[in-house]
């Protein structure tokens, strides 16, 4: 079956611009997670959704970052006024109800010039 998909796969933007990253989880997976992977910080948790609610946003680095999930499915991570330190690979993962294993997408590589 289809796995987690993310788009775009690569995004190059200029400092100060806004970007939107999209995640399509596996059908039927109720939990959705965003992580960020960068050379300096490793893999960092950003936000967790259960259905359309986000019980834990503690990993979002600043108020420039926001995320939403609609219909219990697709999620969008938005970064406003991008900075060079936002450059990283943004990974999305989903897991089924009562499941602990997370299925990761291929990621979006964001480069802020």
């Amino acid at each position: 079956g289809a796995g987690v998909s993310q788009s775009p796969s690569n995004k190059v933007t200029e400092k100060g611009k806004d970007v939107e990253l999209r995640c399509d989880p596996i059908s039927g997976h109720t939990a959705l997670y965003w992580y960020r992977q960068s050379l300096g910080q490793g893999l960092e948790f950003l936000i967790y959704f259960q259905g359309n609610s986000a019980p834990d946003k503690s990993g979002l680095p600043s108020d420039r970052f926001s995320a939403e999930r609609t219909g219990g499915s697709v999620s969008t991570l938005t970064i406003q006024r991008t900075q060079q330190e936002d450059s990283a690979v943004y990974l999305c993962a989903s897991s089924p109800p009562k499941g602990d294993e997370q299925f990761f997408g291929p990621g979006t590589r964001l480069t802020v010039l």
Partner: protein
Amino acid sequence: SQQGEEDPQALSIQEGENATMNCSYKTSINNLQWYRQNSGRGLVHLILIRSNEREKHSGRLRVTLDTSKKSSSLLITASRAADTASYFCATDAWGWGKLQFGAGTQVVVTP
């Protein structure tokens, strides 16, 4: 901030040898998971061990957990070139999936 630290940072072995990597963490956990990442397949879940378990096996993988020492180890037996990847431990403190990853161990398996 990262919860886990992995040791060694890098490991180079020959096909057929065993590979062992260790993970230490700081706070109590609900479960600990191991993931593999390579350029071809992204991050892939390997195995999960719960806080009340001490050892678990899956194919050529063996994971141990010592909650008193806050440490875990991953053993890959009879390694293959296809095992070349970065291996990450990830802790789940509360059981709902907020994973905190270690820095990873880069494993290179040469034919």
